C-alpha cells in the first residue's frame, strides 16, 4: 500500500511537470514526460503481473505436490462414489425386502380378520341357541379348519416379521459408510480452502493443515476398514462368515 502512495506521488510530480511544459509550449519536453509517465505505469503493471504469475505458479505446484490431495482425487473420490452407490443398493434392497414382507403379510391378516368376524357371528348364534345340530357340526368343522389355517398363517407372518427385522441391518452398514464419506468431504474442503488461500496470495498456515490431513489416511496396521464394498474388497479381508470360521478354527477355536 505504501508503495502505491509513492508511485502516485511520482506520477503526480511527472503530471504537474507535463502540464507545466505544455503550458509553456514545450511540445518536445511534454512528449518526453508523457513517455516517462507511461513507462512508470507499465513497470508497475508488469511487476504486479509477475507477482500474480509467481503466486499462481506456487499455488499449482503446491496443489500438485500435495500427495494427499492427489490421492483424494485418484482414489478416495472414486472410492467414495462406489461406497455411496453401495449405500443406494443396500437401502434399495432393504426397502424392497420390507415391502415384499408387508405385501405377503397383509392379505393373510385380512383373511384372518374376515374369518374371525364370520366365526364370531356364528358363535353368537350358537350362544343364543339359534343353531340346529347340523349347523353346529358345520361351525365346529369351520373352527377346526380355522385353527389349522391360522397356525400356518402365523408361521408365515412370523417369518416375514423376521425378514423385516433383518432388513434393518442396512442402517448400521450404510451409517458406517456414510460416516467415512463425511470425513473425506471434510478433508477435501480443508484442502480446497488451503488452495484458495494460496491462490489468493494470503499468507497461510497451509503446511500444517496439509500435514495433518496427510496423516489421516496413512494406512497403519490395525486401522479399521469398516464394511467391505462388493467389487472393491481389501485383500486383507475375509469375504464371508465361513472364512471367519475357518480362520478361527485354524487358530484353535
Amino acid at each position, binding site marked *: 500500500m505504501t508503495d502505491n502512495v509513492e508511485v502516485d506521488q511520482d506520477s503526480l510530480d511527472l503530471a504537474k511537470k507535463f502540464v507545466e511544459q505544455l503550458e509553456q509550449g514545450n511540445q518536445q519536453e511534454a512528449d518526453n514526460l508523457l513517455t516517462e509517465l507511461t513507462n512508470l505505469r507499465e513497470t508497475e503493471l508488469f511487476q504486479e503481473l509477475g507477482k500474480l504469475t509467481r503466486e499462481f505458479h506456487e499455488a499449482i505446484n503446491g496443489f500438485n505436490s500435495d500427495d494427499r490431495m492427489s490421492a483424494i482425487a485418484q482414489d478416495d473420490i472414486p472410492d467414495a462414489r462406489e461406497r455411496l452407490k453401495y449405500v443406494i443398493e443396500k437401502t434399495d434392497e432393504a426397502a424392497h425386502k420390507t415391502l415384499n414382507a408387508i405385501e405377503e403379510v397383509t392379505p393373510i391378516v385380512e383373511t384372518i380378520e374376515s374369518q374371525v368376524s364370520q366365526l364370531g357371528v356364528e358363535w353368537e348364534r350358537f350362544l343364543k341357541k339359534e343353531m340346529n345340530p347340523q349347523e353346529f357340526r358345520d361351525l365346529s368343522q369351520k373352527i377346526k379348519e380355522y385353527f389349522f389355517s391360522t397356525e400356518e398363517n402365523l408361521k408365515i407372518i412370523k417369518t416375514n416379521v*423376521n425378514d423385516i*427385522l*433383518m432388513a*434393518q*441391518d*442396512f*442402517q*448400521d*452398514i450404510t*451409517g*458406517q459408510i456414510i460416516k467415512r464419506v463425511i470425513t473425506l468431504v471434510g478433508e477435501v474442503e480443508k484442502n480446497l480452502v488451503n488452495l484458495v488461500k494460496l491462490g489468493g496470495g494470503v499468507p497461510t498456515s497451509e503446511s500444517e493443515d496439509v500435514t495433518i490431513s496427510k496423516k489421516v489416511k496413512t494406512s497403519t*496396521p*490395525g486401522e*479399521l*476398514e*469398516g*464394511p*467391505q464394498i462388493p467389487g472393491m474388497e*481389501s485383500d*486383507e*479381508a*475375509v*469375504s*464371508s*462368515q465361513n472364512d*471367519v470360521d475357518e*480362520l*478361527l478354527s485354524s*487358530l484353535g*477355536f
Partner: protein
Amino acid sequence: MKKDMKILIVDDFSTMRRIIKNLLRDLGFTNTTDADDGNTALPMLQSGKFDFLVTDWNMPGMSGIDLLKAVRADPNLAHLPVLMVTAEQKREQIVEAAQAGVNGYIVKPFTAITLKEKIDKIFERIDAN
C-alpha cells in the same frame, strides 16, 4: 446355557442393538440390556452380573476390542463369554480379537441362523468344561 441369562448388547448404532435384541428374543433370550460403547458398557458389566456380552468393534469412545481387553483384564469379568458382531473383516483384526480372548466372531451383515449357531457353540464349549 440358561434362557434367562443376562446379556449385554453393545453397538453404537441403535438399529443394530434392536436387531440383535429382537433376534435374541426369538431365540428365547429375553433378559437383555444394551449400551452404545465400551465406556458405557464396562461399568455396567462391572456392577451388573452379566452372563454374556455381545459387542460391535468400531465404536466412538471405547471400541469393542478395548472393551474385550478390559473385560479379560478384570478378574471378576475375565471368564465372561464375549461374542463380537462387527463389519470389520480384515484377517489381522479377527486374529487380534482371537488373541484378546473373544469366544465368537460374526461379520455383518449376518443371519439369525449364524447368531444362533455361534451362541450355541460358545455355550457348548463352556458347558463342556
